[in-house]
């Protein structure tokens, strides 16, 4: 099994031990991350670098709140490639990001019980 993405102790400490708040932001993630991946995928298919950049940036900003260092790293790579116009390099990173976001979702579902 892959190393956990969700850094429970650090995240909960950062939320001042507020479990309700954790449930709330985890819920937002679970409800929206699939749609956000779809939008990135569509932007990649359309070769829209500006859109890829903005969407990757947003995802990066969201998932950073759960730790998820490795996923943040791939989002950042996509963001950088999009900014530099290296669209050919994005697909591989995107596939890894998808897998990691699915994993994060699974971990958060476990947390919510």
């Amino acid at each position, binding site marked *: 099994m892959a190393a956990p993405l969700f850094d429970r102790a650090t995240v909960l400490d950062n939320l001042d031990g507020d479990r309700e708040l954790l449930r709330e*932001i985890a819920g937002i993630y679970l409800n929206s991350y699939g749609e956000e991946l779809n939008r990135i995928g569509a932007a990649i298919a359309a070769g829209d670098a500006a859109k890829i950049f903005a969407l990757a940036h*947003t995802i990066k900003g969201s998932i950073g709140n759960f730790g998820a260092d490795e996923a943040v790293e791939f989002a950042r790579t996509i963001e950088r490639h999009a900014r530099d116009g290296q669209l050919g390099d994005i697909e591989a990173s995107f596939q890894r990001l998808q897998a990691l976001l699915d994993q994060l979702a699974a971990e958060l579902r476990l947390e919510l019980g």
Partner: protein
Amino acid sequence: MKICIVDDTPINLTLMQALVAKIDGCQPVCFAESPAGLQYCIDEEVDLIIVDYMMPAPDGLEFIAQLRSKDTRAEVPVLMVTADHEKDVRYRALEVGATDFLTKPVDRIEFMSRVRNMLAIRRSHVLLRDRAETLAEEVRKATTEIVAREKEVIYRLSRAAEYRDPETGAHILRMTHYSALIARHLGWSDEALDLILQAAPMHDIGKLGTPDHILLKPAHLTDAEFVIMKRHTLIGAAILKDSTSPMLQLAAQIALGHHEKFDGSGYPQGLAGEAIPQAARIAAVADVFDALTSSRPYKKAWELDRALALLKTGRGGHFDPECVDAFLARLDEALAIRERFLDEEQ
């Protein structure tokens, strides 16, 4: 305190809202859409704005630039949220007026400290501003009171003179308004007209020093008595002279010079033409016209035509021609003044 948070990323918006709500006395107002958030911050005075950098337009930089373009929003603290490696973005944010930054992902300890610091600055600023406003208001009030008191003292001085003067309060009011009427026609400013309205009532204040047997004599004065009567101009000037108040300086000129004649045959100094202050030349026309058209213990009121004829005859002799012409040009208004301030016995 009211804290506006603008971020298009729902997780971050929720998180920052929850953290702000944990600070005592803080009320978060959240916007996921930047234009609505900007409009709110322009319309409402909030105590702190937290704005994300990367958003659909306006982004954080444009948001801050537009906010700061409003004079009334130059001081509200603004924290911009960025990733900490975005150094060039931070420099630009400082240029457009960001107060400080928050790093993404939000770190609770840093977030709470920076927000608290910003709010402390905000509180000091509001306190200082309120104190400055309070002080300015107190100075305004004190100044208004002083001016009102000065007017009141002068009014009471004029009232004291009236009690010594067989002429009526209505005469003083008519003479004063005729004087202002002539002055306005001669182009005096509103401020100067205000001064002459206050000063002219004191033209005969020197009669305080005129003995009763002369002042109250119900017949023409002997030559010797008239010499004493004439002194009311000098006494009035002595009462009013050497003041730093422009109004009292004007009053002194009028008291001293309102019996001077344009051809130099008047008293007390026998000044001629423009050597007589204009205010005194104005007052001479106003005073004589009202004396002629009022009844006195020793004479009836003249008909209007006869009084006007005398003004015209005296044009250039007794009176400054300009002042006579000004009075005649505004005769309708003069007659309205006469109707407005009637003697009680009439």
